[in-house]
């Protein structure tokens, strides 16, 4: 059963340089209790997808122009703003990349957790503060009673991100959207936060959309992965399928760009040079004919530049948008 289904979502920004198609027809499903990874480089539209689901795109800059977002069958795109507010923080919550700036500097931690609880459950303020203390215990912040009285600047980056998780999970949401939740943290703290999120997911049964540019994070947390490029979904597969047999040239490029320090590379006596993907992400303020990755793709043909490739299922649960899949897989083998 899918808790969330995104169909043909399109979000455009209206700028002086023209219409920027930040998200251009993206679809995916999220099953109850599942973790779905969305991966891609900066500017591929993964954060905009997340903000579009919650309708948090500032209306003076851009808006969702097409598609639907179904939360248990209810289309959020068509919902009045007041109903949408009742869903945010309650049924769908979000945590953001920058723990240093995502909490309000002039309000106490307790206030920032409790206000979410009061807003969506209507309990008294003191009951909400009790709940806030419980949540701080749940995210393993020591001495929660004291922390409730403190302000964000008295907390470390890791603790702030734990606080964000506590806020996001305080009303037992069905969906948690995590937009690069560990990117701004130290590596050791990153692992702690990811472990915490997985543990809480098991405990609370929350489905997670994990947005990241880091395939390592995907490998550790997700069951399924959506790869995005230039506002479009280019590949979707289970984590095992994706790492075993990446089918899109862009996904393959991303994988080659991960540094390898493992034994296999050591034994071989050489550490392979990191390979970058040549070229840059296309400007999104002009319509892209054909495949958006074609200008950077070693397999590109005339057809790739002229016709947009449809998503084709290559194996059960593995789909890819590429005209040259056969050649790509052959080259890999």
């Amino acid at each position, binding site marked *: 059963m899918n808790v969330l289904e995104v169909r043909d979502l399109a979000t455009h920004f209206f700028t002086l340089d023209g219409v920027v198609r930040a998200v251009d027809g993206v679809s995916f499903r999220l099953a109850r209790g599942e973790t779905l990874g969305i991966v891609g480089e900066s500017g591929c539209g993964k954060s905009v997808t997340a903000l579009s689901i919650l309708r948090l795109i500032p209306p003076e800059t851009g808006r969702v122009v097409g598609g639907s977002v179904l939360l248990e069958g209810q289309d959020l795109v068509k919902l009045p703003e007041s109903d949408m507010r009742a869903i945010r923080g309650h049924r769908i919550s*979000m945590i953001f990349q920058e723990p240093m700036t995502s*909490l309000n*500097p002039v309000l106490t931690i307790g206030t920032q957790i409790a*206000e*979410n609880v009061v807003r969506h459950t209507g309990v008294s303020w003191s009951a909400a503060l009790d709940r806030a203390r419980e949540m701080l215990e749940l995210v393993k912040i020591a001495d929660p009673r004291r922390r409730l009285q403190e302000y964000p600047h008295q907390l470390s980056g890791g603790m702030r991100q734990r606080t964000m998780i506590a806020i996001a999970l305080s009303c037992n949401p069905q969906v948690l959207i995590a937009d690069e939740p560990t990117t701004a943290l130290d590596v050791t703290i990153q692992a702690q936060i990811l472990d915490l999120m997985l543990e809480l997911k098991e405990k609370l049964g929350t489905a997670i959309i994990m947005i990241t540019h880091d395939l390592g994070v995907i490998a550790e947390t997700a069951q399924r992965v959506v790869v995005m490029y230039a506002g479009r979904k280019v590949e979707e597969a289970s984590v095992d399928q994706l790492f075993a047999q990446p089918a899109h040239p862009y996904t393959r490029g991303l994988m080659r760009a991960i540094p390898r320090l493992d034994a296999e590379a050591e034994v071989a006596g050489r550490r392979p040079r990191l390979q970058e993907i040549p070229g840059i992400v296309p400007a999104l303020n002009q319509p892209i004919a054909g495949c958006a990755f074609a200008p950077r793709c070693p397999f590109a043909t005339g057809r790739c530049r002229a016709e947009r490739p449809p998503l084709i299922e290559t194996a059960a649960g593995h789909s890819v948008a590429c005209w040259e899949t056969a050649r790509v897989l052959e080259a890999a083998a």
Partner: protein
Amino acid sequence: MTAYIARRLFATLPVMAVVAVFVFFLLRLAPGDPAAIIAGEDATAESIAAVRAKLGLDRPVLEQFVIWLARLVQGDFGVSIFSNLPVTRLMAQRVEPTVALTLSTLLIAVCMAIPIGVVAAWKVRTFVDRAVMIFAVMGFAMPVFLVAYVLIYIFAVQLNWLPVQGYRPIAEGLWPFVEGLILPSVALGITYMALIARITRASMLEVLSQDYIRTANSKGLATQRVLLLHALKNAAVPIVTVIGIGIALLISGVVITETVFNIPGLGRLTVDAVLKRDYPIVQGLILVFAAVKVLINLVIDISYAFLDPRIRY
């Protein structure tokens, strides 16, 4: 915190001392001779000299300064040259209208300016925002006396809703007191309102683009809570600063407003004393205004700590 306040209060002493030195010598440097004015138009040289000796103005300036300062620290501001009344008593008589006018102006300006600034920032680049900005530019550009006469013409002369001028002490009843304050407060407050509204809008705009506002929205909080708690509390420091600076501007505005509306306050006392070269009164008033200003700065600095928990003294 208490230690900080004590330290700051102590630090006001040298500031006030410097003000005292400046006040005393600047007045002595200003052209015009009080003795000649008091003695009258057809006074002889002897009678002017007699007046000068009586006032102690014939002594060396430095000696005059020391005598003045010694009395000052005992709370003695001297005696008016013309009326022979103690300066402290003259000021006490005039304090109520000025305090009433200043406070009602502040109240009107702040209560109007902050909401319209917040709404303008919230509805940025819409008709509402543009209307507020036009008002802000015009309000800031119009001199107090112009606004005052326009208001008098409309609301007092044409509509006859409010008195043209004058002041009724609060002891004579609340409504007569309030009635007399409305026009002068609005006239004096418009500039100030425009200033605070602009700063509120600018400060709110900056805050509204911050990550934590997006977080607040992602919790589905009501717009009022996001604007008035999450955003305004963060935007408050510059707003409070400008309110403080504005109080200094108000002091000069009070002089003009009291003249236009014929209100017997400290502003009028100042103008009259300056025109007559009544040194003791002018010195006393400047010192009082300076002390008020220093105290307001202190209050504002302390308020920062309450608005922003990251600020600690």
